[in-house]
């Protein structure tokens, strides 16, 4: 088997590093949002229970619902990035003789 193109290995590492950084950053955002919600509920009960919007809803409910909406939103951002950038890059790398396991 011929050696992979000289830069292929480095290129893979750069690409994969990018994926972990993006995945890691999005994980961090999710964790901050979630544990932020939990800490608000656990340590700032009066704030979480404060009523807004004419007494129809509390800050805690709004934040909780926002975290629920955020989860699929972050997922969508990642999937869009991976479909548009990661997959084509992997395809190109493999076409250029990246090592095939």
């Amino acid at each position: 088997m011929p050696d992979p193109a000289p830069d292929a290995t480095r290129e893979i590492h750069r690409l994969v590093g990018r994926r972990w950084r993006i995945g890691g950053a999005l994980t961090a955002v999710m964790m901050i949002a979630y544990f932020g919600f939990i800490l608000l509920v656990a340590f700032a009960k009066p704030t979480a229970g404060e009523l807004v919007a004419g007494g129809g809803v509390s800050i805690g409910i709004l934040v909780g619902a926002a975290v629920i909406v955020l989860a699929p939103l972050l997922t969508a951002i990642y999937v869009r990035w991976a479909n548009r950038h990661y997959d084509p890059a992997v395809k190109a790398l493999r076409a250029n003789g990246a090592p095939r396991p």
Partner: protein
Amino acid sequence: MTSLGEPNVVAIVWFLGFVLITLGITWWAARRTRTTSDFFAAGGNVSAVQNGFALAGDYMSAASFLGIAGLVSKSGFDGLIYSVGWLVGWPVITFLIAEPLRNLGKYTFADAVAYRLRQRPVRIAAAGSTLAVVTIYLIAQMVGAGGLIHLLFGLPYRAAVAIVGGVMLLYVLFGGMIATTWVQIIKAGLLLVGATLLALLVLSKFGFNPLALFAEARRQYGDGVLAPGDLVAQPLEVVSLGIALMFGTAGLPHILMRFYTVPDAQTARRSVAYATSLIGFFYLVTFVLGFGASVLVGRDAIKSVDKGYNMAAPLLAEVLGGTGFLGFISAVAFATILAVVAGLTLSGAAAIAHDLWGHVIRDGKITETEQLVVARRATVALALLAILLGIVFEGQNVAFMVGLAFAIAASANFPALLLSMTWRRFTTRGAVASMVTGTLSSLLLITLSPTVWKDLLGNPEAVIPLKNPGIITVPLAFLVAIVVSLIWPEPEAARGFTDAHDRMHLGAD
């Protein structure tokens, strides 16, 4: 007055319809189930949308439908803490786990952990934690099933447990993953349609304005209904539960197994995105159902039927849609339990036939025929075990067991899986020590917790004040994995990392 608990014609018709259709699918699937890949992974032919629904179906248990709606109807805001916790693990699966897992493995998550490590020890430890999670989750589901079906249909507890075990056995034994996937898809569809219809009926009473619903709840039960309540008496408790829920989702063997049913990593990624949206939507809907039940049915009426408030959603269906709608929702709840139990059993059978028998006993040299025979025997054994455990634990309060299953999944499976994919110096010993520590420390700390040590065993004081041990056991499992790997390096495993690395990111072919 409610007709709940009396034989309900609509419920029986819907339920029989569900069972007949799913058994028909099982018959169809059985003729397509020839290889182990068909049996464990549906031949890898499931599409992203199908797997998205199937993942949601595997995950949305009766505990999340009836349980959360009940908890919200009882205490308002507090139910939201569970809903959020049960959802936030899904993005983590997308960002960190799904794609590498799909590329590295074949049938179980142990495939990915053991990829560049020594097979036998890792497989034994992973099968151990898988079977622990599956067994404990099964107890919670079976006991819940018996009780719920008794309440919903007036069927005797043991008969209900036997029916659930028996029908589930038919699905898995003959139809394998193909049938189980379709059961999940149909169940997820029915559950989403039923819950959404019910929520729309609730909101129609309030001009389709959730704020008017919340305001009415406040008028009836006071401001506290929109604020954190008893659940958060101990702040540390909530954080610990949160850790277990978030990382436990990413370590549930029956969820992880689903990523092998799709053709490639890209489909795996898209399927989690669908699942996350469906599950998030579902939890928003259950929140409306809980408030709707407390306002339109009333807490006293809900409590008089079941002290655990689990019947909030069915009672709401009866108030808003009559006996017919109650029947439909009851049948959906029954179908929900059946589907979850089937998924759990299949993942347990995979751990036994693929990890233990195939890799530990036969050292990876096993014929298709033999593996299928072992898988089917394991399925029968697990189904019998599920029925037996359901009967043994009759009348016990098993609510804590779902939390325990998540704690084990978060501490035993998630750290080892993540480190095996990301850390070059991770070793066989580190993986085994981490999985064993995660499993045993979770079991031990739950035993010493207020729920078991005090409430169940009758001791005056709990040894550990935490109900869920996640805040201790998850970091502990990571720590043990890292320390053991650093003390006893494994050059061969480190060398294999490059190959594993390329494979998990560039794909398997």
